[in-house]
């Protein structure tokens, strides 16, 4: 792959955006596909997986597509400018891969009715804007089950990025999974207020370990927490991609976001003209949520984890099934009732047992 740094732009937050283009257009019919990333593709987490999906698309569709990505684009005004830049550059399909790009995507989409947009993890759609989301929380539930089995202290540490539904879903599902094994299980939450700051994520992990947690799970994008967990000889879960390299004796498993097949399907749809705006929310069943190998745990825990995963995949187990109470003690779901997708996608409350106050 030829990587070319084509331009640098000063971002309002003094972040840096670099544009890398791959391939050169030969045929006019070639579909140009653009991607906006929140972090660098080398984060080995969230953005890395999206980039893997992009590469997979290039590999499978070959000459039919030409992809471009903008990395480390801050959410907010910069995002809007960057998305517009991709649209102006002739990209006919643009993937914006972070929750915070939602409003910017909608805004730019209004200006470019002939360009198709795909926004990850949001909830606003339009004629030319689709939303695709992954049921990461299914993986989080499995992790909760493992955590409750593996933790001697009965307390896990959870490093969150921002208190948005996607992250809150994860904390709740993790808690419910843990409670299914140990009703008294505790989760300590630290918000880093950043998706990617290795130093701060490491500090948060250290603070959690110092306060007695013996399992760490993260919803931020760097591998720093995994590294701290390794140093302190406790266990941890990876985030977004398989981080086993950073904690060969530490990682229990990791939720691996498998975007490739979806990206290929959508690019094909644009090429053959069948693209329609939709709102999909897929998980283990569809293969969007994949679990990294279950490692560093006894066989019985591994077996339980695999069984839980199988039940979720088959639909037999839905993590958000009643009877469930909210953190304040009020009833959320009656026995046997399951949460609908709308509630899940806008989740802004904790379930009973989470030891944190949700910032608003």
């Amino acid at each position, binding site marked *: 792959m030829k990587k070319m740094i084509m331009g640098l732009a000063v971002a309002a937050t003094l972040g840096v955006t670099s544009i890398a283009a791959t391939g050169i257009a030969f045929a006019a019919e070639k579909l140009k596909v653009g991607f906006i990333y929140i972090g660098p593709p080398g984060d080995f987490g969230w953005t890395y997986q999206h980039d893997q999906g992009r590469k997979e698309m290039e590999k499978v569709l070959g000459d039919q597509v030409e992809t471009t990505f903008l990395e480390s684009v801050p959410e907010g005004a910069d995002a809007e400018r960057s998305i517009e830049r991709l649209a102006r550059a002739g990209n006919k399909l643009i993937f914006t891969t972070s929750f915070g790009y939602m409003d910017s995507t909608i805004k730019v989409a209004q200006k470019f009715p002939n360009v198709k947009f795909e926004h990850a993890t949001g909830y606003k759609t339009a004629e030319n804007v689709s939303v695709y989301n992954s049921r990461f929380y299914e993986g989080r539930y499995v992790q909760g089950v493992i955590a409750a089995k593996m933790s001697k202290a009965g307390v896990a540490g959870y490093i969150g990025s921002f208190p948005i539904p996607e992250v809150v879903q994860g904390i709740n599902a993790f808690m419910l999974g843990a409670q299914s094994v140990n009703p008294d299980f505790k989760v*300590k939450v*630290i918000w880093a207020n950043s998706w990617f700051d290795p130093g701060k994520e490491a500090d948060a992990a250290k603070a959690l370990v110092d306060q007695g947690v013996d399992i760490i799970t993260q919803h931020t994008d760097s591998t720093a927490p995994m590294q701290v967990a390794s140093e302190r000889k406790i266990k941890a879960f990876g985030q977004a991609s398989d981080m086993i390299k950073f904690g060969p004796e530490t990682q229990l498993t990791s939720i691996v976001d498998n975007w490739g097949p979806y990206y290929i399907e959508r690019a094909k749809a644009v090429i053959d003209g069948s693209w329609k705006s939709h709102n999909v929310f897929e998980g283990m069943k569809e293969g969007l949520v994949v679990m990294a190998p279950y490692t560093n745990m006894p066989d019985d825990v591994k077996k339980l984890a695999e069984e839980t995963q199988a039940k979720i995949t088959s639909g037999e187990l839905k993590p958000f099934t009643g009877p469930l109470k909210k953190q304040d003690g009020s009833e959320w779901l009656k026995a046997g009732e399951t949460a609908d997708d709308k509630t899940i996608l806008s989740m802004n409350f904790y379930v009973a047992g989470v030891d944190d106050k949700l910032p608003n």
Partner: protein
Amino acid sequence: MTMFEAIVLTIATAATPLLIAALGELIVERSGVLNLGVEGMMIMGAVSGFAAAQMTGSAWLGLVAAVLAGAAFSLLFGFLTLTLATNQVATGLALTLLGLGASAMIGESFVGLPGVRMESIYIQGLTDFPYIGKILFGQDPIFYLSILLTIGVAWFLFKTRAGLTLRSVGDNHASAHALGVPVIRIRYLAVLFGGACAGLAGAQLSLVYVPQWVENMSSGRGWIALALVVFASWRPWRILAGAYLFGAVTIGQLHAQALGIGVPSQLMSALPYLATIIVLVLISRNKRLTLINTPTSLGKAFVPDR
């Protein structure tokens, strides 16, 4: 290890890169040059330090490489602003952007490789001393370097003739030049020192703080260091106080969150910035002293008349 020790050690690790980079910038600014490229030099130090350590297996060689890389990178800034008299603000910003981009390219093949950690020192008996043993005798070498550096910079600036000359260049380059002081040469040396320090701070990031290489891993620490210099009104010990205050509030708020005290996390995350600014503004409120300490030629290009 007690909770107290653990917290102090974490604070020291968080404060050290800020302290080192800010001390370097202090010398640069005291010579009358404003180098906004700290973030860029820091990240170049981080990637070079990681790469050298990874290839040789020695964290110390990584450290040396980082210092050299930071200094070499700053030389580019020096050439542009001192020899060619370009605008310092614009050149510094460009240096940061270039550093972030170049480090990402250099580091591409090092992403995801296990890092080499610079081990903490261990002295039989002393390090095991309860409560303070690990804090005084069990930290990483760069921590001790940062403390020595603070002492050295304070001594140099205010107790040596060379320090006085440096300050005179920063206060009034025309007068200094008239007295026969080699303004440009002194500024070059100051810029190189600043670059070396930023490189060292970068090495701390990729060899001690988070021993791995990831793009953009400095995450704005260079900017915080720059701000510290100004808020500490160009005084080395205040920079130390500021860096540690920033580190302490950062770590403190993380612990407070883990305890679940229920203060909005956004406010908590802003707290280190707020607290540091307020405290440093308060201790610097003596106008006369602040004026004395402000390098009046700061940011102005110097072109010697022949």
